[in-house]
């Protein structure tokens, strides 16, 4: 009883001295005006259920790269917009999203995917953790130059097949290997999608860790 009575005021005192978590993470790394902006945007984002960490990371990145505060501010607002797009797209699909999957969707938007693409992936019925990985991989494929149609087709097929997320994480390496053989990113993704669909028709792979079948060689342009 005595300990509890003594702990409460001391804990409150410690919390007051610590300040907000955002300011604590940015202290000494970012100019004060950027700290204030991140706190403002971050508080508003948190009330909307959006993740705050991408904002903190972007502010630290801008400061580390020597970017002027006004450009950092513009980048921060862009990040909030991308996270908002992702959250709305997930909501359209009826996904009860957490901050991780929204952050993954925000990255996918940064990489070039649209809200409709995110909704399409979310409607595959994949679990939220699998969808999170799927969005990250789809964003990576977009950064590799895979067009949206082939990208979403491939990742949707993979998510519907219920394969382990470890296999999903191998997709960029497989696409890269096909590109190294001389096909376009679109052809590589389309070939992998056909292979994944064929495998899904045959049933699940016999055991986890089995290497995926090599996709049929797409026709050369």
């Amino acid at each position, binding site marked *: 009883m005595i300990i509890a009575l003594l702990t409460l005021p001391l804990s409150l005192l410690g919390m007051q001295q610590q300040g907000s978590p955002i300011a604590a993470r940015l202290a000494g790394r970012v100019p004060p005006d950027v700290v204030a902006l991140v706190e403002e945007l971050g508080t508003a984002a948190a009330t909307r259920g959006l993740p705050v960490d991408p904002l903190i990371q972007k502010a*630290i990145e801008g400061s*580390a*790269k020597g970017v002027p505060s006004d450009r950092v501010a513009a980048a921060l607002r862009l990040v909030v917009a991308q996270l908002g797009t992702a959250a709305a797209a997930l909501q359209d699909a009826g996904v009860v999203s957490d901050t991780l999957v929204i952050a993954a969707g925000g990255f996918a938007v*940064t*990489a070039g995917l649209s809200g409709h693409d995110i909704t399409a992936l979310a409607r595959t019925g994949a679990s939220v953790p699998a969808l999170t990985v799927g969005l990250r991989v789809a*964003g*990576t494929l977009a*950064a590799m130059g895979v067009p949206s149609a082939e990208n979403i087709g491939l990742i949707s097929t993979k998510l519907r097949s219920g394969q382990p997320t470890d296999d999903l994480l191998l997709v960029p390496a497989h696409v890269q290997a096909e590109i190294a053989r001389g096909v376009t990113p679109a052809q590589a993704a389309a070939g992998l999608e056909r292979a994944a669909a064929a495998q899904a028709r045959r049933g699940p792979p016999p055991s986890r860790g089995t290497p995926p079948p090599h996709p049929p060689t797409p026709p050369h342009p």
Partner: protein
Amino acid sequence: MSEHEFHPSVKQLLDGDITIADLPPELRAEGDEALRLLAAVDRSPVQLPAVSRRVMRAVAARPARSVWRGVVKPRELRLRIRPWLLAPALAIAAALIVFLRTAPTAAPASLVTVRFMLVAPDAREVTLAGTFNQWDAHATPLIRSGPTGVWTATLTLPAGQHQYAFVVDGVRWVPDPGAPAVNDGFGRRNSVLTL
């Protein structure tokens, strides 16, 4: 029960202290009657079912004690504080605060070992900055291997998504030529690593 009082010698007989032969002749008839009465006593155990049934019925009929009522019922609480106990109590409270503020709140993510490589023959220094080291351009130096200008670093990173760039000679931010990249929002490109 009659009000009849036996002779003290007869009482001795009933107590087993003497036998009927020890009694004087004028008391033997009284002694025989006393022994007869004693033998007629029923020593079988007495059953009183009605009593136990009444007790159990009363217990069953007793209302269950409400936990909520026990919580909200006002009680008199007397708190006595011994001054010499305050010092250890404060020490324990401080230790609890330190423990609660430093205890990990989430399970660690799975880790993946990654090797980064950049060919930069003319560079004097190459470092790695990204989301995994708070974009600290001095935290993760690459090591030059031989005269070929190949710079490498091997890191163990948590599973997830990371963005990064190489920093050449402390000023030039260079995306990884072997990895996909996205716009960083500042007019440059960040490399992407999905684990």
